[in-house]
């Protein structure tokens, strides 16, 4: 019988080796791209998204302080007046209104009446949500008894608590959820007034049991040491129509969804017997919390970019005293990619984004919070363009190579390779342009598409 057994030749060995190597490579690529389950309710993350000790960008120095809370929405009017004289802001608004009416009458694509009203409708929930009131109330929900003194408090390990809260957040509509430690320096100093009749209110930390909103201040209890950071993806079919009111509906919907998610989650947490403060863009800087919670990395846009949805997300957060296990920041090679890419800066219609090769501590104006390293943007130029274009702009978000639909497998492969081989970043940037990604889509075509969009969610 021994004589019948053929010896294994070199060729057979090579063939078998080649097959094993090819299969192994395919398997490795598959695992790298698709990732593995984490065993929690967190969205499955690809293996190329690595956890790190500190965020890859955003390091702070001694100049870092709590931000005033006066962002570009609050600052534009005084800055416009300062730059171009008294009445310039009002004249600009009149001119914008006239232009919008003319474009509506002309049925300019993206500016027709249905386009504008679609955006208005999408803003509804967000516009009826103000810090400390209504959906964004800081106090316990009236009529709910589980937080009454006699009610039992739900307890579990920090890991189980984190899982429970993430599951609830995902049910309400969050796509990425992470837990970060409270950092008081990320919380704004004030909540700016929303109209002339009101006053700016201070945000203070005090040793109290429950959050409080008075005529002069917002009080955050010091025992609130946990922040649930949440990302809501924007509809990229709408975003691809920016800068138009139709494109603005993507932001509007993102904000309204955010208000719904954080308010629902706050009620859920209060129901478990803890305190919760729901916030959208208000009260604190969302980006540093999202960085600490591992939602994404800081980018050339000076905004968060997530591995899954790019920068096309809206961020929101819930402060709580419910003890949960913290998440870690992530690194997927974005900062190196941003150094090479610069596509957002090139396509920005107002030239508001930085072309610098390296991030720095140099701010561009009072809308930037100094003391942290990033690529600072010129928000004044950005807002001025919004007035000219008659709509909020999001060209930078739409054009980022990380803003892609999730159906083509190749995009996951490209992101995986970019995360481990920065030398390929330049090639991917060239290919992104060659394939025509990031260009504005026909606004009129949107109305004939099957709704809702199946590109996200």
């Amino acid at each position: 019988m021994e004589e019948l057994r053929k010896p294994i030749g070199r060729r057979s060995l090579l063939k078998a080796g080649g097959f094993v190597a090819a299969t192994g490579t395919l398997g490795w690529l598959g695992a790298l791209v698709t990732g593995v389950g984490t065993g929690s309710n967190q969205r499955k993350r690809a293996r190329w998204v690595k956890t790190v000790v500190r965020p890859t960008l955003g390091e702070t120095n001694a100049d870092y302080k709590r931000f005033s809370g006066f962002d570009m929405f609050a600052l534009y009017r005084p800055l416009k007046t300062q730059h171009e004289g008294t009445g310039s802001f009002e004249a600009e608004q009149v001119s914008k209104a006239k232009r919008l009416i003319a474009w509506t009458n002309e049925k300019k694509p993206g500016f027709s009446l249905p386009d504008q009203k679609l955006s208005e409708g999408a803003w509804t929930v967000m516009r009826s949500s103000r810090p400390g009131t209504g959906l964004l109330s800081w106090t316990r929900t009236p009529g709910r008894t589980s937080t009454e003194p006699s009610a039992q408090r739900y307890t579990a390990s920090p890991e189980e608590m984190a899982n429970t809260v993430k599951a609830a957040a995902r049910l309400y509509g969050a796509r990425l959820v992470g837990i970060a430690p409270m950092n008081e320096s990320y919380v704004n100093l004030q909540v700016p007034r929303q109209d002339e009749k009101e006053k700016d209110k201070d945000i203070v930390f005090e040793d109290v049991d429950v959050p409080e909103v008075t005529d002069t201040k917002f009080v955050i209890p010091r025992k609130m040491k946990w922040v649930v950071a949440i990302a809501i993806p924007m509809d990229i079919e709408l975003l691809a129509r920016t800068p138009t009111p139709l494109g603005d509906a993507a932001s509007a919907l993102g904000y309204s969804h955010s208000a719904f998610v954080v308010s629902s989650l706050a009620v859920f947490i209060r129901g478990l017997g803890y305190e919760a403060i729901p916030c959208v863009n208000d009260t604190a800087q969302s980006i540093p919390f999202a960085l600490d919670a591992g939602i994404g990395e800081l980018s050339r846009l000076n905004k968060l970019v997530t591995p899954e949805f790019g920068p096309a997300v809206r961020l929101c957060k819930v402060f709580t005293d419910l003890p949960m296990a913290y998440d870690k920041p992530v690194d997927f090679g974005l900062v190196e990619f941003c150094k090479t890419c610069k596509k957002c800066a090139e396509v920005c219609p107002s030239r508001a984004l930085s072309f610098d090769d390296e991030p720095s501590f140099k701010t561009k104006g009072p809308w930037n919070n100094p003391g942290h390293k990033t690529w600072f943007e010129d928000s004044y130029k950005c807002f001025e363009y919004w007035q000219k274009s008659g709509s909020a702009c999001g060209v930078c978000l739409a054009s980022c190579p990380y803003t892609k639909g999730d159906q083509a497998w190749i995009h996951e492969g490209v992101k995986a390779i970019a995360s481990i081989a920065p030398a390929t970043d330049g090639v991917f940037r060239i290919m992104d342009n060659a394939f025509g990604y990031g260009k504005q889509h026909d606004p009129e075509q949107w109305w004939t598409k099957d709704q809702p969009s199946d590109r996200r969610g």
Partner: protein
Amino acid sequence: MTNGDDVVMITIRKRPWWFWALAELWLLLEVLLVQTALASARESEYRAAAISWIAAAILAAAGVFGWLRRRDSRKPIEANERS
């Protein structure tokens, strides 16, 4: 027609190991390009879809051409090689 004196020799050659590796790579790229083309069209990225279709077609043509060329270039085994 052959008579009893003719000898007909059929040679069966094994394909080299690298052929299979190349074929596997070719198939992988084809699948990837076609999937990208279909997905890009669904995502309204028509330029990406068109480029992917063109690349898939070129790759398919190159594969067929390469296969035919290899078939035709096989030399018959000469009589002196048979020993």
